[in-house]
């Protein structure tokens, strides 16, 4: 295992300290639990809070700031945070207009956030939750854990954050988040595995000519192992699964998001984006907004994911609204 680190047990805490040091004013760490708070919190607005295992940076700590999250609760690497983190973070940033938890659909995340919500509700805080489950690689069923929350989470946090910043009520913000979740679909793949620092070795192995299709963001194996193919073939396979699922139709306007898993260079991400743009053009689907880069990662994994979000005027305006975070910034 080759990582820039000091002690295995300290990677999350020291990285958070670096985030705070690099962005003074923008974010501050909670004094007692692991949580990244907006520098100017609490504000008289709905507090939008997310969290999950670490190792997906810039998600979520990098999205704390104006127009996006009020707080982020990072767990250990790939491990859901604990309820006290969400509870304390909410207490610290809540401004009297309620709290929205944006939760990625993993058993651990869902249960831990639920417990925090119960604790807060018990104290009279108005808490709503939306669970993001956009990963089409996972077969959905009433009897399973359902689909994972992946790339759509970034888009939901941006759009919902803009609505909260603009003064949306908890009901409005929650409804918007559900709308985003209902219109967004994703799929990921890996060229290489990644190594959880505390585990010290890769979570799976791949031969030199193999790839994993349908991976999540936790270094977990995907649904299928295949021979490596061209970028165009890979993109088409993933894009087709996404387009067919919603389904996205000719004439639809979308936000096209090509996300790197952490170890894939930008050159390859833009190359994949080029193939995605061609594919969507052929289908008559119109790319109205785009995002290309490392936004929801799996440590140093090589690979990428594609996310498509169906847009309308409301979503476009909220996407374009100013945002100022460590990981996403425009308009200020």
């Amino acid at each position, binding site marked *: 295992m080759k990582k820039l680190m000091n002690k295995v047990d300290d990677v999350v805490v020291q990285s958070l300290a670096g985030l705070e040091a690099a962005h003074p004013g923008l974010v501050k760490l909670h004094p007692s639990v692991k949580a990244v708070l907006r520098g100017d919190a609490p504000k008289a607005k709905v507090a939008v809070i997310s969290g999950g295992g670490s190792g997906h940076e810039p998600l979520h700590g990098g999205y704390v700031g104006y127009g996006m999250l009020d707080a982020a609760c990072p767990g250990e690497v790939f491990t859901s945070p604990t309820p006290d983190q969400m509870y304390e973070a909410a207490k610290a940033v809540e401004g009297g207009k309620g709290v929205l938890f944006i939760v990625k659909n993993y058993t651990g995340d869902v249960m831990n956030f639920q417990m925090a919500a119960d604790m807060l509700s018990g104290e009279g805080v108005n808490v709503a939750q939306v669970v993001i489950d956009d990963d089409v690689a996972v077969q959905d069923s009433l009897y399973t854990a359902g689909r994972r929350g992946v790339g759509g989470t970034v888009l939901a946090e941006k759009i919902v954050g803009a609505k909260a910043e603009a003064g949306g009520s908890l009901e409005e913000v929650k409804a918007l988040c559900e709308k985003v979740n209902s219109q967004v679909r994703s799929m990921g793949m890996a060229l290489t595995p990644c190594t959880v620092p505390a585990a010290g070795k890769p979570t799976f192995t791949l031969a030199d000519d193999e790839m994993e299709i349908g991976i999540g963001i936790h270094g977990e*194996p995907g649904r299928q192992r295949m021979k490596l193919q061209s970028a165009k073939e890979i993109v088409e396979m993933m894009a087709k699964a996404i387009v067919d699922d919603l389904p996205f139709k000719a004439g639809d306007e979308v936000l096209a998001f090509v996300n790197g898993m952490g170890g894939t260079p930008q050159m390859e991400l833009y190359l994949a984006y080029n193939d995605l743009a061609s594919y969507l053009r052929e289908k008559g689907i119109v790319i109205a907004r785009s995002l290309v880069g490392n936004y929801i990662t799996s440590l140093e994994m090589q690979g990428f994911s594609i996310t498509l979000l169906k847009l309308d005027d409301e979503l476009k305006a909220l996407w374009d609204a100013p945002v100022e975070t460590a990981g996403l910034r425009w308009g200020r």
Partner: protein
Amino acid sequence: MNLDVQGMLKAIDAIGTTLEAHKDYLTDLDSAIGDADHGINMNRGFTKVREKVSQGTYGDLGAILKDVAMTLMSSVGGASGPLYGTFFMRMSMKLAGLQAADASSLAAAMEEGLKGIVALGKAQLEDKTMVDALSPAVEALKKAAGTGASLTEALEAAVLAAQAGMESTVPLVARKGRASYLGKRSVGHQDPGATSTYLILSTLLMSLKEVA
């Protein structure tokens, strides 16, 4: 020989030792069908638990298990944190005020703990989770207690049932937790949470036998 406050503290320490020794094993199991952290999670949690209970003075079993539960809840994270947290919390409620537990009071407490896990995680038998080890163990414990078995005898039956339950997860397709994302690819691997449940129960038994 019943499980008293001293015995419970000793057992918890022993469970910590076992989970530390099996950290890599549990993590490897979780690499195959999960995200390679179950051993790390459990070890982190029980390291904190040992720290916590070693500092307390306890007059009853419930108080110990409440500290165990709260500590797991705020240090494990993941799926197993709330699940084991709830398990011990529900047990602590059943054992509140008791200085010692016999087979039937332990069986009743564990049954309550299992109910908590199911209420939270909604797993059924054969979903390939810790429930597959815990549920038959609780059944065996109850049954043995009902026939007037001693605590160690009853726990022996429970551990055997847990082991069989753990092993039964190998051929299953996971329907809950992270392993469910793998669909059929989860077949052929033993569930990490069922394994940690077995380890916890078997260590409890061994610790109890040493005292006896």
